[in-house]
């Protein structure tokens, strides 16, 4: 946060304005999280109901190597998705930010509109494209008749395609939101000072769009860790990820304490990392002044 140096403590007016946000977070975020925390220390009875007897059994299970491995795999997919979305999406966000102002809104809409269709229909359309007798293989066959058909569906490749597809807009939009102000004359000035395009990119463009890149990375990485629907539909549900496991605990396994414990650990890890990240950013910004 870039609080102006020497800013006084917020007056009562600022507190009043912040109050609705705090209330919302308190009631609809903290309270539910606290409930989950309570559940995670409970036990369950034969019928799968939560029993309010203190027990740390759920947390002991979280440390089981199976689940640690699943968590690591989820992190892997999330990282790969974020990196790919960044590489693919950054140029798009950059280009839209440089189009004439009147057109930008429309380009953004065009990016978003595919996601105003139903997720299931979209995913089944992808299955139609990637299946063995699907569109992709048909096109491939007509271009290069000899090659055997690609078996993309129900593989990690298909999962990656699905993940990148689903999260691309959440990388493009924040980068656009931050890059939009970038003055073209700054780039030209850098050119005039003799910088080559690579230098311009690394010394001017990247640092100035860094907040947007960080935001995009956050908005893609974090939600994608708990993603499971795409791996289920396009990956054949062969590899359980964190989202599947948590889902199962509340549905089929009827082990709410364990599901809550997994959730609590996951959220706590995130909170810790985010806290550290915010600290870094604050220190970085303070150093700039």
């Amino acid at each position, binding site marked *: 946060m870039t609080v102006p140096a020497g800013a006084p403590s917020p007056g009562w007016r600022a507190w009043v304005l912040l109050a609705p946000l705090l209330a919302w977070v308190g009631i609809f975020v903290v309270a539910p999280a606290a409930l989950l925390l309570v559940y995670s220390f409970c036990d369950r009875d034969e019928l799968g109901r939560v029993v309010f007897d203190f027990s740390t059994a759920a947390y002991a299970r979280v440390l089981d190597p199976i689940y640690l491995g699943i968590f690591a795999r989820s992190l892997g997919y999330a990282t790969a998705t974020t990196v790919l979305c960044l590489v693919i999406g950054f140029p798009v966000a950059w*280009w839209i930010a440089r189009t004439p102002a009147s057109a930008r809104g429309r380009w953004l809409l065009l990016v978003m509109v595919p996601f105003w269709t139903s997720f299931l229909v979209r995913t089944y359309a*992808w299955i139609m494209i990637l299946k063995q007798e699907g569109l992709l293989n048909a096109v491939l066959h007509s271009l290069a008749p000899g090659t055997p058909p690609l078996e993309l569906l129900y593989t990690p490749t298909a999962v990656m395609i699905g993940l990148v597809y689903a999260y691309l807009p959440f990388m493009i939009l924040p980068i656009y*939101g931050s890059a939009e102000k970038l003055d073209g004359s700054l780039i030209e000035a850098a050119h005039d000072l003799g910088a080559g395009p690579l230098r311009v990119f690394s010394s001017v463009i990247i640092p100035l769009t860094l907040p947007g890149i960080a935001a995009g990375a956050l908005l893609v990485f974090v939600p994608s860790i708990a993603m499971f629907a795409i791996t289920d539909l396009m990956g054949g549900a062969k590899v359980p990820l964190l989202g599947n496991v948590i889902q199962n605990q509340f549905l089929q396994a009827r082990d709410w304490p364990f599901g809550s414990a997994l959730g609590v650990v996951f959220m706590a890890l995130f909170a810790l990392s985010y806290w550290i990240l915010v600290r870094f950013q604050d220190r970085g910004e303070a150093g*700039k002044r």
Partner: protein
Amino acid sequence: MLNSIMPPATAPKRRPTSGTVVVERGLRAWTLAVLAFLYLPIAVLVVYSFNASRLNVSWQGFTLDWYRQLAVNAPLKQAAWNSLVVALATTVLSIVIGTGGAWLLHRHRFPASRLIQTLVALPMVMPEILLGISLLVLFATAGVPLGFTTVIIGHVTFSFPFVLVAVQARLRGMDPALEEAALDLGATPWRAFRLVILPYLRPAIAAGGLMAFTLSWDELIVTFFTADAASATLPLRIFGLAKVGLNPMINALSALFVLATVAFVIFSARLRRDAAANPLPP
């Protein structure tokens, strides 16, 4: 380190070098390729909305049946309307809460501000089933009946952090001189915010709003636990349908939505061009 200020209107125009033209063309080609990637499954689903086969697997002839069936299917239309209402309400509320929150946290040094920031980002990371079930237990304990209100509350809770993060990113790059200048010129903090900061934030607000709308529109799990029959959204109605084969009516519905929005985009572009070409006489 170069710091960016509101671009001066009188930046000298320079002729683009051949290098920059190549880069521009390359970027445009890349963007169009990415858009093609994004619209590929959409094209497929639109085509299949005309497929004369209930089990949407292979092409079996052209038909408008699904559109006809959609026109008289009251539950689906109601669900689509509900989704729209919920998504719009969610977007508006998320923008208000997200933008306001980002600005306040940026502008003032609140005690435990880092804690607040972390808590505010938490709903993004909460798996949907956890949020859904815990909200339901909350509502049930408090005796709040399920309906539009509870659904919108759930949606806003996981949507507003997206707006907040997007707006925060834009604020991070903002020159504090912007607000100081406005205040020096005699504006109250509220006027400075409304007339200087808010316009500056508009691209981030637009980005955040689009994200919030999209998240709300297609959300299933939190909605399942917080909705009742009257407030059932489209994803709720659709999800179990895979069991008997996704009805191509859903393709038709999705196709209509896409075509309507794309038509709107093209139409509004044409309107603007006409208005620019033929300005109304003073």
